[in-house]
């Protein structure tokens, strides 16, 4: 059971673990998370971060670093962790980082007065922001999209009025022109980096304001389209599977309506197959593998169920590798189970297998008609003998218990090789 984090900071009571806040987040939830962790008012933390950012830009960089490396509350992985897990993203991130560092070094080498002490934190934070956008979970993406959408000026009102549109176009155009003018005033290519950056920022802001509605619409359309496509594919997959297996079986059942045991067998097979597909999709018994005790028993269970039309209830506790001795034990158990399925007239055969430190055991039981052990019919004696011989050869033992009209149990056990 996970311990719930408080949604907001409780003043004076620090709280572990350190996570980014969700409910008290404005941007990435770093300040909110820190406030919860330290038990300090959110606003205090925010002011400290702002001051740090203004003083040398370190606050900004620290913020982005925490954004990348701290998992969000309720999430287990940080953005950085997720990004590092994807090879392609990793390559992109490295490439981007090298590009940024290279750019800054070139600026320094040329002795160009850039943004001064702000250059490094600013550009690295920009790179980190791109990383955040690429690595955020869908939930956080929604939060970020909402943030962008509700930002002043970029915000797209639900029903854009003419006045609104006019204001947007006007403001956007003015900013774009201003940016271009700043850039065009430069003398030479590297006339001064400050105006370059300044002009570029103004230009970008202007274009953002002009194009925001169109851009946001495309964005949400794209993600909606992608979601719809995934859903359609998923549905097609399920439909294909249901058609291949379930519908086919239902047709077979309809055709075999007169034959009760055939119907039961078909239904049981289909049930097992469907259950595996639904609940245990990763579980495939590989034929080329040696397998384990349990995997051989499961194979035997389905085989007997489909061949003899009885229900087999298999319970396995523990597991071990299937060596020659264990395979002999399974083979002996199979004979006992087939025997029960054929002769006992019980609808259910119970098989219990257990692996203990020193022994491997197998119990096959039915509540069928049973027989008197003293007067075993000859055709069945052969089987009992063969089970016993098999077990003896491999150093194990077998016991047969049967009572007329109560049932039969075969107990097999094998010492474990250590």
């Amino acid at each position: 059971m996970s311990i719930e984090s408080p949604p907001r900071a409780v003043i004076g009571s620090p709280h572990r673990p350190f996570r980014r806040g969700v409910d008290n987040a404005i941007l990435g939830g770093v300040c909110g998370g820190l406030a919860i962790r330290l038990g300090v008012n959110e606003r205090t933390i925010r002011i400290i971060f702002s001051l740090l950012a203004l003083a040398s830009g370190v606050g900004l960089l620290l913020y982005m670093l925490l954004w990348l490396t701290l998992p969000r509350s309720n999430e287990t992985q940080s953005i950085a962790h997720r990004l590092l897990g994807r090879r392609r993203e990793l390559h992109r991130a490295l490439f981007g980082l090298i590009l940024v560092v290279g750019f800054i070094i070139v600026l320094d080498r040329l002795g160009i007065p850039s943004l001064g002490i702000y250059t490094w934190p600013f550009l690295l934070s920009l790179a980190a922001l791109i990383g955040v956008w690429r690595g955020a979970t869908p939930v956080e993406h929604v939060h970020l999209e909402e943030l962008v959408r509700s930002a002043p000026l970029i915000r797209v009102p639900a029903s854009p009025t003419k006045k609104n549109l006019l204001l947007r176009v006007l403001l956007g155009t003015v900013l774009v022109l201003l940016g271009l003018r700043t850039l065009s005033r430069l003398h030479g290519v590297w006339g001064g980096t400050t105006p370059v950056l300044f002009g570029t920022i103004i230009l970008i802001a202007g274009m953002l304001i002009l194009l925001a509605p169109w851009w946001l619409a495309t964005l949400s359309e794209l993600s909606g389209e992608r979601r719809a496509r995934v859903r359609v594919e998923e549905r097609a997959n399920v439909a294909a599977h249901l058609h291949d297996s379930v519908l086919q079986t239902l047709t077979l059942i309809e055709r075999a309506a007169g034959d009760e045991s055939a119907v039961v067998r078909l239904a049981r097979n289909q049930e097992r197959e469907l259950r595996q597909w639904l609940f245990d999709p990763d579980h495939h018994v590989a034929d080329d593998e040696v397998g384990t005790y349990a995997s051989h028993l499961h194979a035997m269970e389905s085989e007997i169920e489909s061949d003899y039309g009885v229900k087999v209830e298999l319970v396995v506790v523990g597991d071990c590798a299937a060596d020659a001795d264990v395979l002999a034990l399974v083979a002996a158990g199979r004979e006992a189970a087939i025997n029960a399925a054929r002769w006992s007239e019980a609808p259910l055969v119970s098989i219990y297998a257990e692996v203990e430190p020193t022994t491997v055991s197998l119990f096959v039981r039915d509540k069928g008609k049973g027989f008197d052990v003293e007067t075993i019919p000859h055709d069945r004696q052969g089987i009992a003998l063969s089970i016993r011989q098999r077990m003896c050869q491999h150093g194990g033992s077998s016991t047969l218990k049967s009572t007329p009209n109560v049932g039969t149990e075969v107990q097999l056990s094998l010492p474990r090789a250590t």
Partner: protein
Amino acid sequence: MAAGQPRVFLVDDHELIRTGIRSELSGSLDIVGEADEVDAAIEMIVERTPDVVLLDVHMPGGGGLAVLNAVSHKCPDVRFLALSVSDSSEDVISLIRAGARGYVTKNISGPDLLDAIYRVAAGDAVFSPRLAGFVLDAFSLEGKSLEAGDVDPDLDLLTPRERQVLRLIARGYSYRDIATELEISSKTVESHVSSVLRKLQLSNRHQLSHWASERHLN
């Protein structure tokens, strides 16, 4: 309606299953109502306080667990028997941990289901072979998750006798068969099983709390 018949409430979102159970059991049980979704079930169970609720594990809106959690603290006397189409114990272990007295699969025969309901109504536990196997696995002595200081012998370990009883259940023995086999009374068998149920519900063994928290997150 004869006196002494347990009052039973059905919760299942499949009409066919409810109809099947009702037609099979209505002679031997007093079926006081049924519901096909979580909210209605909670409201009606609290209102009618049946002896036993037959509770489907998988339902939209939180499933059987939501019903169990909402009702159990309001009506502690109502007992729950989980009804699952899947026989994997992982599916029902969270219901058991939440207070259900046992579980049966939907392909159980009529007489066996009746037997299970009567047993739950009497305050006993109902263990299927598979659940017994799961418990033996979860409480295995080789459990790596047990830190020396963390073990509460009353909750985290099974007694040899309880182990014996569970093994026999896993081998397909009925309670009466077990009593005969171990030469003890049926009542003693029942008290062993109830004690295992209590450990299953309260133990902090890693494998158990792990299931519970995993389900909780979903």
